């Protein structure tokens, strides 16, 4: 090893981050394992119909146990750091507030921006680490010509997590390693087996870590009840694209753009949620054709491969995690705001989600869909 570094690995107790720790250790680095305790799963157990038994994965004792066993197995120091307060403030509260105002949030991006690559990076530096490594599928590289750190899509496109990482700053990227960026998931599992990691076959986690079973409506009810706050009345009218009131709905937070089920009205042709109007508490419904749009506006911009957008730029844009990037033109539209014009109309552009811009496999940047 030419340049052994001190590297803090963010260990979740899953295969990916465990393999990262084992890899870096085998390469001769000085590795420190850190697990962020972000949410107490027991906190809402039994509230408002939440399961009594803890079922969620986030920061569960089982995951901490798994991470600790990996650390012991590969022989690195390991610590759990508590960031529950910050997680609640910067991830959980905004998550609830976004739904209540009719948007569909992405807590994983908030967690990356405010916790994993912010708080954890500070802790890592404080304890003497040069950088933080995670098990994300993405690549980070320094581009001499541009003089910038680049975030790039990984070798395994099916695992691409760059969509959730668009908020990383140059400073954060300069101190971040994604050692799995060049590997496929099967290769990672194979390496985990070779390293003798007992959790090599552990299933991937899919859902939002703090929402057991993915039932975010029940989570919002339970969270507000536990905090002693009343669930705001967000019930209102169900309106067609022509402005005709065709029924009532139970609350705007129960809907997302493109949703077809649970509208509570029967019509001849299928109806979808095409817009949620937070101010009037209206849920607007219409046929599939109404879901398509050629433009979107996005705010709170973070640019990565360029430092500004002096003129329109051709890019491919992803509007949700599982979305094939679509060709579009990106244009500045005021302070900290962009307009995206797609070549082809896109289905279900959803406020609260991120629009992430790609130039081939390079992440140009991203912003939050307004």
């Amino acid at each position, binding site marked *: 090893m030419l340049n052994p570094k001190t590297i803090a690995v963010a260990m979740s107790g899953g295969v990916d981050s465990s393999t990262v720790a084992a890899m870096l250790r085998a390469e001769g680095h000085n590795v420190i394992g850190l697990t962020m305790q972000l949410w107490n799963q027991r906190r809402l157990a039994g509230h408002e119909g939440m399961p009594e038994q803890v079922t969620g994965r986030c920061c569960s*004792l089982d995951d*901490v146990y798994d991470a600790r066993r990996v650390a012991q197995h590969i022989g690195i120091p390991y*610590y*759990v*750091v*508590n960031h529950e307060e910050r997680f609640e403030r910067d991830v959980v509260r905004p998550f609830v507030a976004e739904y209540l105002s009719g948007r569909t949030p992405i807590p994983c991006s908030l967690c990356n921006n405010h916790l994993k690559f912010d708080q954890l990076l500070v*802790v890592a*530096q*404080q304890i003497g680490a040069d950088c933080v490594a995670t098990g994300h599928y993405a690549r980070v590289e320094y581009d001499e010509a541009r003089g910038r750190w680049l975030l790039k899509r990984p070798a395994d496109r099916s695992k691409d997590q760059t969509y959730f990482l668009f908020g990383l700053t140059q400073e954060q990227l300069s101190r971040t390693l994604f050692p799995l960026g060049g590997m496929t998931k099967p290769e990672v599992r194979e390496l985990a087996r070779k390293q003798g990691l007992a959790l090599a076959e552990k299933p991937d986690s899919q859902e939002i870590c703090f929402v057991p079973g993915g039932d975010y409506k029940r989570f919002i009810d339970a969270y507000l009840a536990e905090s002693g706050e009343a669930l705001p009345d967000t019930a209102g009218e169900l309106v067609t694209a022509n402005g005709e009131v065709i029924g009532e709905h139970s609350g705007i937070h129960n809907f997302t753009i493109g949703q077809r089920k649970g509208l509570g009205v029967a019509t001849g042709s299928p109806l979808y949620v095409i817009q949620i109007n937070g101010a009037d508490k209206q849920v607007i419904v219409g046929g599939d054709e109404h879901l398509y749009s050629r433009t979107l506006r996005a705010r709170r911009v973070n640019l990565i491969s360029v430092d500004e957008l002096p003129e329109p730029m051709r890019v491919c844009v992803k509007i949700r995690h599982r979305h094939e990037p679509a060709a579009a033109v990106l244009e500045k539209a005021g302070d900290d705001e962009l307009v995206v014009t797609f070549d082809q109309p896109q289905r279900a552009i959803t406020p609260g989600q991120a629009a992430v811009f790609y130039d081939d496999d390079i992440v140009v940047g991203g912003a939050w869909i307004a």
Partner: protein
Amino acid sequence: MRRIYLDNNATTPILPEVLEAMRPYFGEHFGNASSIHHHGQETRAAVERARDLVASLLGCRAAEVVFTSGGTEGDNLAIAGLASAGDHIITSTIEHHAVLLTCKHLEETGCEVTYVSVDGRGLIDPDDVRRFLRPNTKLISIMMANNETGVLQPVEEIGKIAAEAEAYFHTDAVQAAGKVPIDVNRIGCDVLSISGHKMHAPQGVGALYVRKATNLQPLFYGGRHERSRRAGTENVPGIVALGKAAELAMQGFERGDDKKISAWRDRLQQGILAQVGEGAVNGDAAPRVPNTTNISFDSIEGESMVIALDLKGLAVSTGAACTSGAIEPSHVLTAMGLRSDRARASIRFSLGKQNTAEDIDLALALVPETVARLRELSPVYKKQAVSS
């Protein structure tokens, strides 16, 4: 890397003499102390010698010493063994969780519990205890020394209040045993718990003083061991070790070890404060056990500090560790009125008999440089520096 251990309130290393004393009871002397044959007689004698030594340490009769598995069992046995549905208990907000959670459990099963708080010095006011007395107050449980700050509580006064009120008095003396002399009659307690591993005996053994004729319900059933107060075959090596540790503790008091340790503690505390600036000791306005100091450093996360120091070889701690090993703001420091950020910026240093003057010197070199690095990288500290 040279490792320095200053977390003796969490656990202590077994002293070599203690290890020597217990070693034969793992091999050669293996008998069940209840057996009638030679092997049983050998270990029975060893258990009773140990009981005499623990009784001397506590100032009680040997027959009043019940061996347990440690502090948590002692606290559980004392509290759940004396109070039942319909009884009122007075305890404090700064007790160890072994006491607090036992009381919480009893609340669910029909006891009423009053939690007395502390002042800014970390002290319980005996008048508060008196004020909360009720006709059905069955038990008062107040710790002798706090694990996080080392503050010694006015247990003798509380013992008098309990006696006047004809309530039982339990004191959790886990953090006092071996550090300050204990005399159950001066304290006036009916039950007192101690733990082996906090006084250089191994983990998994402890003792509970139970005043003669106290009607204590056992936690375990299964035999007449420990005068029917604690069923189960005795942990002979552990008990022998606890006896030896008690003997060494008494010799230590005669030699003035406690004065030596408090001088080192004071040197450590003053040396750190002089070098870091913006630090304050929690609980130093009250009497404390000699080995403990709890220091709040402005604008740092105690958690990062503990990790950073551990990576440099110095073992200290902050707050109470939860099941996952993550740190929650200390209930003791917040009860003393510290804001949660200040509580989280607090570190406990606790010395033991194995520490040397050199350990203190090394700690004095490591702590200030670590605090400086943490502050340099702290977003909070930078902000304050700019605004001031």
